[in-house]
């Protein structure tokens, strides 16, 4: 019942979180734009006075794409080599916003002020970074344990490719289950850290793990209910993309708008999920 209540509640929360979704979306948008502008300029300088890249408008064209990348290979290489620091920035950004998101979902009826949102983001930033780092280590250990067996098996004689593919597929499935469960632990650890406002990250992970395993069935159930929406979104986007030929400026702009709506919805769904878990967390506390 708590699970269902939380799930239903998350929709209204999501609707009321348009502003916060937009703030986060804008932050991501700005960073992405910052990275895209040099890429676009590079692309323009290489392609604008050649007829070949026009082949890329109707459909993918391996020859045009290949020659374009090769002709400007070094420029693109330099661009992509500097990408790792950006990955770290994305990771830190994802962590940064959690403080603000939890502050909002814990008090959705309050007025959202940008200043408050930012304050909460920074207030919890370092402890959430520590939490994210520990969770990353746990993820790595789990992945190692899951995949070590198939890797050993690949080297054995008489093992068929069917066996390898199936084992790895099962491994991926198991990994996915662990990944979601570990993320649940991280989410509830964040709620604990926020509510209790302390810095004992490891202790909170432990408490959260116990909590998650105690409520595993319900949590998985609401996760499964929630996951339908993102999947529908992906399918809709895929159908639209595979049925559209993007070859005019209007259509390119249309595609861009569609992409941005998709990203905005993803962020909105992320907040919905956090709100859903938080509601469940609170309902359990009330019951206790």
């Amino acid at each position, binding site marked *: 019942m708590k699970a269902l209540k939380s799930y239903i509640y998350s929709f209204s929360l999501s609707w009321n979180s348009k502003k916060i979704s937009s703030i986060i979306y804008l932050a*991501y948008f700005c*960073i*992405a*734009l910052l*990275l*895209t502008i040099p*890429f*676009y300029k590079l*692309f*323009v300088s*290489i*392609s*604008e*006075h*050649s*007829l*070949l*890249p*026009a082949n*890329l*408008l109707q*459909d*993918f*064209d*391996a*020859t*045009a794409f*290949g*020659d374009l990348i*090769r*002709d400007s290979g070094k420029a693109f290489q330099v661009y992509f080599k500097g990408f790792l620091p950006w*990955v770290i920035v*994305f*990771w830190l*950004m*994802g*962590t940064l916003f959690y403080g603000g998101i939890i502050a909002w979902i814990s008090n959705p009826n309050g007025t959202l002020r940008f200043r408050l949102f930012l304050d909460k983001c920074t207030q919890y930033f370092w402890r959430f970074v520590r939490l994210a780092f520990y*969770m*990353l280590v746990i*993820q790595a250990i789990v992945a190692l344990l899951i995949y070590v067996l198939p890797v050993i098996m690949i080297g054995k*004689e*008489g*093992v*068929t*490719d*069917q066996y*390898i*593919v199936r084992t790895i597929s099962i491994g991926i499935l198991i990994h996915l289950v662990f990944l979601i469960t570990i*993320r649940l632990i991280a989410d509830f650890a964040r709620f604990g850290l926020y509510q209790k406002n302390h810095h004992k990250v490891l202790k909170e992970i432990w408490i959260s793990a116990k909590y998650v395993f105690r409520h595993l069935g319900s949590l998985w159930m609401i996760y499964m209910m929630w996951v339908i929406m993102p999947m529908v979104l992906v399918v809709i986007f*895929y159908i639209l993309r*595979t049925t559209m030929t*993007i*070859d*005019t*400026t209007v259509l*390119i702009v249309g*595609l*861009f708008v569609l992409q941005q709506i998709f990203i905005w919805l993803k*962020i909105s769904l*992320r907040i919905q999920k956090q709100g859903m878990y938080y509601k469940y967390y609170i309902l359990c506390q009330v019951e206790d």
Partner: protein
Amino acid sequence: MKKPSNLSKARAMLPFFLILLFVVSSTNAQVILEKALSDRTTSYKMDVELDTDAKTVSGDLILTWTNPSLDTVSDLQFHMYLNAFKNSKSTMFNEGSVFHRDEDDFGFVDVNSIHTLDGKDLSAGVSFIMPDQKNHFQELRLSEEVPTMPDGSIQDETVMRVVLDEGVLPGESIQVKISFTSKLPDLKKRTGFSQNYFFVAQWFPKLAVYEYPGMKSGAESGWNCHQFHRSSEFYANHSLYEIDLTLPDDYILGSGGMVMAEENLGNGKKKVSLRAEDIVDFAWTASKDYVVVEDQWKHVKIRALFQAEHLYQAERHINALKEALAYLDEHVGRYPWPHATLIDPPTSGQAAGGMEYTTLFTAGTAYGLPKGLRMPELVTIHEFGHAYFMGILATNEFDEPWMDEGMNTYWETRIMDHVYGDKHGVIDLPFIHIGDKEFARFTYVGMNNPKIADAYRPSWEFPHGSYGSVIYQKTATWLNTLERMISTETMDEVFKTYFKRWAFKHPGTQDFIDVVNEVVTEHHGDRFGENLDWYFDTFLKDDKTVDYKVISVSSRRVYQDAGIFGKADSKLFIEQESEEDLYRSTVALERLGEAIVPVDILIHFEDGTEIIEYWNGKDRAKDLIYERSSRVEWACIDPEMKILMDTNLLNNSVTTKANKKPALKYGSKFMFLIQNLMQLISIFS
């Protein structure tokens, strides 16, 4: 002066010997084919047994060889391919890494006895030679011209020479009985065993090809017998094989021959009598785990041996094979044998995959491959295609590998793109697709150094692992370019003529070039010059690359004459006035590559008119100048994209009207990718 006289003598006598050979070969009764397809200079009769525990194949072989030349031949030379796996001193091991560890992993072929059929012992005349005289690494390590082991024995043992007491006279036959034991290696490259799986290729003492003047262009008298190199394939006579093979009765057998009889010996063994006619190589395989699927294409019985886990892909393989049969039948010539065997090796035996043995070939696939990834189809079509170039034409893969792998890859690209769609042949997934022709060009032009080597050299002389890209992909690309230049119809005519003229005769490079020149001249006169030798000199025998570039397109208004004219008092000043609506447009072209190819240039004016110019492509730079009422909007070299050899097609055109749409589209895709990546990474936050 000696050579021409020998050559003319040989040519004069050739018809006589061909008749003689035909008489000899016709004594081998026809069982599979209506008539002998080749001169069958060799035939092998074997009685061998597979020992699945010892991993050996042993028995007796009776070789019959008819001397097709005008020479008295005083020795025989055999390929002893399995000795490449004997120890780390072999040429093959030296050209790659040693990948065997346990004693059981190594392989070899031992000659236990050798004598003529009338009983003369030839063992005293047996020695191992290294015709190629070097192993790459040995050359660095040792100063001796012919490297030897400390005990004085030669290092590579893949070529065995048998000196005869009496030479074999022209047109005469010799019969030699060899008792041999072949220890199969662990299957790491092409042949051997993997647990209870056996793929048995290059497994017996195999006679080399005796070449002679008149056989093909440039042939000289002597054995053409090379060591087994890491990247080389094979060269052999078309032969008749009659093999009695004993093996455990629970093993399923696949071979390049047809089963003539099968007898259960009652002791857990069976004896299978196999026969193959006019093929250059006899390979076979045995496993308990094969699942047999049979099908038929016109006169060809298809027998496919699959791994159970790949059975669901059987249709993909067999359809691809049928498509290849139909396409090659229509565009090159008839597949003459009534049988074709497709082998799907197990995962542990993948080293035997993707290989051809005329009427038997091995496929290559993996469980779970989506239909849009056409690896099973590509490998099947490619390996079957070899039946034509390695099998029927039977070119020398040691010395002229481009004639098999290159030509075959060209046909593979044609078949793949024809059957599965142009630009969709190899990969056909929702957001990405690549045609086989595109893939071949992509691999060639994408090499770190496309000028690294010409394709006209022995297979083991390609530096830095460039053999594959140069021989397969570069050759396919310049043959595709040739096709686009001379038209598909002419290209088909070239191959049909080449096939008809040279089937079962081992042609050489010049023989193919001669056919091209003949057919192209017949169809196009001197449109491409006196002949197409220049084309082969550029792309086959040289490492030159093509790159034509439109440097700029510019237009300016044309002005009337202006300035001060006349002298002293009669000076006249004429003011500068522009001609009404007259522009001088200049299209600047450059040749960046060393290769010279004639190209078309399409000039498009702002008023929509278009002109096609022809440029012989010889000069390093060329300007095209027009005075018209309309400015040039864009210019494009090779607008029909015939010259696939051009290493950069992006610079083939320049337009004055910038088109930012592709950048906008891909910029938006890139941004979307970044945004999604951000979301993805936040999973780990």
